[in-house]
């Protein structure tokens, strides 16, 4: 069953690589919610989600013909998403250095009702305390990616992924304190 769906995905990716617009549309629709969730986990900001997700998919369309192995599309897409989010967070950090705006102008809290539970708010807060690389690691695990796939996405070894994941989980637990 899984091999059928992965061959269907590889076929869809091949059609999209040939410039077939309906295939590109189908790819975006299939992955938009997962990418948006990943972006939200990385940035913790609702107002960044649409813009950054759009950037990720535009990069995907423009670089799709350079993807050698269509079967590895998912790892490749989440690598694009991870790098786009990390670039955005770096730019934000640089802007904070060079522009005379305080952190309170950048970190505008989510409006009331934007997050629907204390636990979700606590998770957002805990993720914000981690390094973006660690956030990406945890979000990739939540995406159901295996250690081997994450190692491929991050271009590192499986052992390194396991060690970093262990540390990231420890840090998340330290900062995760729901009030209720």
């Amino acid at each position: 069953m899984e091999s059928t769906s992965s061959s269907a995905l590889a076929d869809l990716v091949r059609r999209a690589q040939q410039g077939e617009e309906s295939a590109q549309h189908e790819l975006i629709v299939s992955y938009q919610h997962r990418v948006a969730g990943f972006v939200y986990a990385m940035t913790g900001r609702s107002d960044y989600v649409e813009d950054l997700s759009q950037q990720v998919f535009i990069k995907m369309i423009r670089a799709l013909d350079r993807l050698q192995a269509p079967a590895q599309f998912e790892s490749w897409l989440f690598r694009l998403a991870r790098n786009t989010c990390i670039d955005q967070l770096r730019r934000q950090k640089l802007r904070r250095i060079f522009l005379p705006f305080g952190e309170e102008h950048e970190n505008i809290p989510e409006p009331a009702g934007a997050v629907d539970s204390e636990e979700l708010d606590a998770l957002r807060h805990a993720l914000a305390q981690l390094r973006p690389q660690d956030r990406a690691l945890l979000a990739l695990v939540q995406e159901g990616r295996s250690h081997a796939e994450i190692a491929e996405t991050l271009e590192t070894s499986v052992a390194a992924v396991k060690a970093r994941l262990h540390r990231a989980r420890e840090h998340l637990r330290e900062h995760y304190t729901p009030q209720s």
Partner: protein
Amino acid sequence: MKPEDHAWRSLQQHASAQLNSRFADRVLRAANGPCDKTWQSLRSHGAAQLRPGFAARVLRAARKLPGVPSLLDQFVFSAGTAIVCIVGTLYFHSRSLAIENERNLASWHQIAMFVQDADTGL
């Protein structure tokens, strides 16, 4: 009950009164980290931020952007830039050399005139 037992019990009671009413829940949450449901709601919240028609908007935006230059285009552009730089450098170098020569000749001419005047004076 012995007096020390009573003291122990009141110590326990005092200590347990310091705990939050949902102490066990909080300990479990802190020990296990966020549960799958919380992660799921984080992803759902992110996904809910996309406005309807997202895929169509992405495709429109991708079409509007200029195409990525090919390797050959990049090579031609780099070679053109390098040629312009070399020609510019050679031009300014030869021009400054010519000005320097003219200046040297003028000063030699002045010296020659001065020597000639001195000769005729003698």
